[in-house]
């Protein structure tokens, strides 16, 4: 009987790296399907960064006297607005697993003969991809705020945005691990994300702050993901050292200026640690 033959042929293989990778890939693919289908989400998550960039940018910019040392406030704000967009999009992507739990689909994923880590890696890559796709729209507007369209700069920014998106989605997953009710998911995100945004240097330079604020920005993982982004933009601007020091002072620990490479490595470490924590918490609760 043909049925029997086919039954033998489709038997599931024993575990292996390929199986784990396929599981992560299909979880990622589902995030893409959902992103494409949800046009309202795309539009609403673009509105907020655009408001920040043009309304807050112009408003505060005029207070600062339009340009300072040839740098418009919007130019300074540009990488920060990227980060805010990533923050909200990715955190939502991570916390969306609460909805998967509510509708039972999380169970379908977690009972599969693959590790929880593969499922969550797929989720985090999906969140990072969605966040990056959103940022492409913002990147296209670079010229409007005085940021040059330099291919290498844009590629570096995309890479950094993806990394930031991965880290924040992983954070969203950590938060989602213990949330049983859909209603409490969004307030929790707001509670965690808003301080991360304000304390990251996305909206103001990290120089000349009071000590308590400096300490808070330094313990915020987001700070180390935002600063490389700004640094890349300023690398491609034609500004003198004094202006750069004012707008892009970098991160200074004690007397040591943390190199951008170290900041990126720290972000990678944060991302992996958060993902690990999410895996542990999901294994324990489901």
């Amino acid at each position, binding site marked *: 009987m043909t049925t029997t033959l086919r039954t*033998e042929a489709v038997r*599931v293989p024993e575990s292996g790296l390929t199986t784990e990778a396929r599981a992560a890939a*299909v979880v990622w693919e589902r995030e893409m399907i959902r992103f494409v*289908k949800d046009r309202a989400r795309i539009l609403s998550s673009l509105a907020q960064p655009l408001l920040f960039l043009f309304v807050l940018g112009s408003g505060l910019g005029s207070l600062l006297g339009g340009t300072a040392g040839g740098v418009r406030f919007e130019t300074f704000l540009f990488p920060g607005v990227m980060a805010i967009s990533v923050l909200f999009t990715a955190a939502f992507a991570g916390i969306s697993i609460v909805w998967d739990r509510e*509708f*039972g*689909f999380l169970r379908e994923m977690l009972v599969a*003969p693959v590790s929880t880590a593969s499922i969550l890696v797929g989720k985090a890559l999906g969140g990072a991809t969605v966040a990056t796709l959103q940022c492409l729209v913002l990147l296209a507007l670079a010229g409007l705020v005085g940021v040059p369209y330099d291919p290498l700069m844009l590629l570096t920014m995309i890479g950094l945005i993806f990394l930031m998106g991965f880290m924040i989605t992983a954070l969203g997953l950590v938060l989602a691990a213990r949330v049983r009710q859909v209603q409490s998911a969004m307030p929790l995100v707001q509670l965690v994300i808003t301080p991360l945004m304000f304390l990251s240097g996305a909206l103001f330079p990290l120089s000349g702050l009071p000590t308590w604020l400096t300490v808070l920005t330094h313990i915020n993982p987001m700070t180390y993901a935002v600063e490389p982004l700004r640094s890349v933009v300023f690398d491609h601007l034609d500004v003198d050292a004094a202006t750069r020091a004012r707008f892009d002072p970098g991160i200074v620990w004690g007397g040591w200026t943390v190199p951008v490479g170290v900041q990126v490595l720290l972000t990678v470490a944060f991302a992996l640690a958060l993902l690990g924590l999410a895996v542990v918490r999901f294994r324990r609760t489901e």
Partner: protein
Amino acid sequence: MDSPAVAVRGLVKRYGDVEAVRGIDLEVARGETFGFLGPNGAGKSTTINILCTLVEPTAGEARVVGLDAVRDRAAVRRRIGLVFQDPTLDAPMSGEQNLRFHQELYGVDRRHAAARREEVLRTVGLWERRADPVATYSGGMRRRLEIARGLLHSPQVLFLDEPTIGLDPQTRSSIWAYLAELHRSEEITVFVTTHYMDEAEHCDRIAIMNEGRIVALDTPDALKAQVGADRVAITTDDDEAALRALRTELGLEGAVREGAVTVNVPDGAGFVPRLFDRLGGHGVAIRSVTVTRPSLDDVFLAHTGTTIRDAEAGAGPSMHPMALRSRTAHR
């Protein structure tokens, strides 16, 4: 391939003070359709969750196709199909997308994946609707899609936890028709829990579970035969006199249930004339007689002293299925 589909020995599961499963032994042969029958909170779901490696037992052993449900977790999962009590579909995705997702998750060979999807979708009658989002499916269609999905990776045992709960009677019987069809075409073992008595009739063998224990285990016919054939319910003007007459004249122990004197006899129809003959002589006026073929309800009643409906209504809050389920989730 000689190991039984399911083998359970001394299985115990405690949630705090609640003992959901109190030491059960069970063996299911390959190719059997095995039913787990009992009221809500009897421990059926806990048992099936242990077999599916979702819950670890407190004590005892559970084996599926010869593999230990605790130690060989991933290997067991690859060989079983699962249909849960609560829906686990992604509503925005189409029926076929849900199936493809499952195949990738289980690492099914891509060369045969599309053909297999078509095969299972046709079996459950959803091939024409495959491209529609699951959100547009009815409850019965979703259930069928979940059954199809459970079969995608050609499992050796298909576990279904209350597959027909919340469905109307017509849809319920169509689900059972599909299950019977699958059983023929797929040559797999089906392990199903239900609290609908009539559904247990579809099984080769059934285990009746109550308060964490298996109280009876046999074929539906054998179980019914055990209860002592037919049940005769007699309404009279004087139940006490009727009971006495039954004892002295016919040597039968009757009981008053739901306002009628009931007695179990091998041949109900042949018993009725004798009943009138003997009881009439004692001046007991009989108003009506009902002869019922034994049902699984009677089997349940005989083994537990209560009807399945009363058992469900009487289940205290600690044994409520919702409470048990949420505890399962917090394992």
